[in-house]
């Protein structure tokens, strides 16, 4: 454990969890999390439901508060200080399982909202940026429609574009394909793969093991609030070492 910790004193880390604990009331949901994510690294977090994986990434942009330990994102430590939280949230983008697009705004307006009001970008510049990113996720033709008029896969790609419009350094994905019909999962995963190829630092919570194998630099397995095993994809899937890892993989891989 100590050797592992020593290695993680890497100063250029994008995200560093050190001794992080979190409780919901009396329920100990995150137990002594220690993890370092380097810049440009792609991490996939997997595990059974209730293992705390969503809670883990939601702590990164302070949607959840941790009670013990420290989380440092891009050099900024997350505390109750609102200024720091805002700083972190500007540099960290998040994509949700339920998309959470704003239904009263068009797709374009969804994308330009934060650049205009948070980064104080002029409207034209924001619209150009949004247009470029919507084109990259291949839904530029839907820009003037409302979220309710798009399919699930299109909505999730729009949500990815919306997060990218803030030019984040780190992208968090909380089970991005779990709410999608099977035929739309691929288009979203492809978009995420393209993003990964461009060198974006990503943490992805997902059950899509094919994606993990192809894209991840490391796979983190969590169970009951603790990190059980971490490894590169090939050794992780082909030669799992911990008993619980083997059990989990046998249940989800056929």
């Amino acid at each position, binding site marked *: *454990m100590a050797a*592992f910790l020593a*290695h*993680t004193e890497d100063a250029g880390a994008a995200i560093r969890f050190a001794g992080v*604990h979190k*409780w919901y*009331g*009396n329920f*100990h949901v995150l*137990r*002594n999390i220690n993890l*370092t994510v*380097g810049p*440009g*690294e792609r991490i996939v977090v997997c595990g059974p439901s209730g293992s705390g994986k969503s809670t883990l990434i939601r702590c990164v942009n302070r949607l959840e508060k941790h*009670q*013990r330990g420290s989380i440092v994102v891009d050099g900024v430590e997350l505390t109750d200080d609102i200024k720091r939280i805002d700083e972190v949230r500007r540099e960290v983008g998040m994509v949700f399982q339920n998309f959470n697009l704003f239904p009263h705004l068009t797709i374009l307006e969804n994308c330009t909202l934060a650049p205009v009001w948070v980064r104080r970008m002029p409207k034209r510049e924001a619209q150009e940026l949004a247009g470029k990113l919507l084109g990259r996720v291949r839904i530029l033709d839907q820009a003037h429609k409302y979220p309710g008029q798009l399919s699930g896969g299109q909505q999730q790609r729009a949500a990815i574009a919306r997060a990218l419009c803030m030019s984040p350094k780190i992208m968090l994905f909380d089970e991005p394909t779990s709410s999608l019909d099977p035929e739309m999962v691929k288009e979203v995963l492809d978009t995420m793969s393209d993003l990964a190829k461009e060198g974006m630092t990503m943490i992805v919570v997902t059950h899509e093991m094919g994606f993990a194998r192809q894209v991840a*630099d*490391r796979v983190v397995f969590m169970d009951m*609030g*603790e*990190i*059980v*095993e*971490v*490894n*590169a994809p090939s*050794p992780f899937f082909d030669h799992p*070492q*911990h008993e619980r890892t083997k059990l989990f993989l046998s249940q989800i891989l056929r």
Partner: protein
Amino acid sequence: MDSLAYVRDAPESEDAPPMMSSGVLAWARVNLFSSIGSSLVTIGCITLVAYWLPQLIAWATTRAIWSATDGALCRQHQDGACWAFIAAKWDYLRFGSYPVAERWRVDLVEAVGALLIAWLLWTNAPRRMWGALLFFIVYPILALVLLRGSSLLGLPVVDTLLWGGIFVSLLTAVVGIVFSLPLGVLLALGRRSPLPVVRTASILFIEFVRGVPFITILFMANNLAPLFLPEAWAPDRLLRPLAGIVIFSAAYMAEEIRGGLQSLGKGQYEGAMALGLNYPLMTALVILPQALTLVIPGIVNNFIGLFMDTTLVSVVGITDFLEAMNNAIKDPVWAGPTIMVTGYVFAGIFYFCFCFGMARYSAHVERILAKGRK
């Protein structure tokens, strides 16, 4: 990036949360004192409550007069409630001027009614269909005969002029619901009918009744009924406002039921039609039982609203509970500055307990139904 592999060797201990993040202190910190503004608000609220609450409680309990034979004691002690007044007037508030010797009839009707309603509303009760039949068909006739009296049965007739108080409030509300439910069902079905005449007629009726104040419906029933009916049919003075209440309640009931019908979804209709059921069978056996169960909370809410609306019948000369209280307050034997306040506060407590209790029940049923529907 070189891979940082890790395999857990020993499980983490499950610790207790740090002191400041759970327990009473933590709860207070988050819920009462989370910021400067919040703390100020908390202090402000506590001061307000600390000032008024003891006064209210003292007025109602320690400083109140609990027994007396007339208003003298209450006039002397004007800083407390005069509950003795309520105790003295309690029979009048319950029965109005109903003859004392016949009051057992009112009690019987109320008891049977309460039993039947409990049977119907207890969600796991056996044979609720029987309860429904009894309540909606047999009970109204029984109640009417018992209350009014009939020389045939040896029960002295009691003119509706003498009826008053709580039992009249309950009677008007219960009659209102009992008769407005079938009428509401017809209107709701009519409003969804594909036949244009039926649909238009239903819509016109519902929107007309919902668009005007309840008082005007009462006036209409009271003043226009004698004109539109033949001389010989002159309807009883209680029957006219009752008709108005039924019409009023039916329109709102129809909208509740329509909501239930809509939320059933096409699947139920299509399933029934695929089995070969015709419209009456499908409606009676498949659609209505489900829709009505869905809107039980809404129906109970309607009942609560109706019970409060029955206070308006005094405008056409019916002595409901509130009017009985108004009459009781005017008694010169009890005259005093605290009588009116005591009377109104008691009436308020009565209505609040009744309505709040029913609202709680309705929320309870909604929770049970929501679970079943998951």
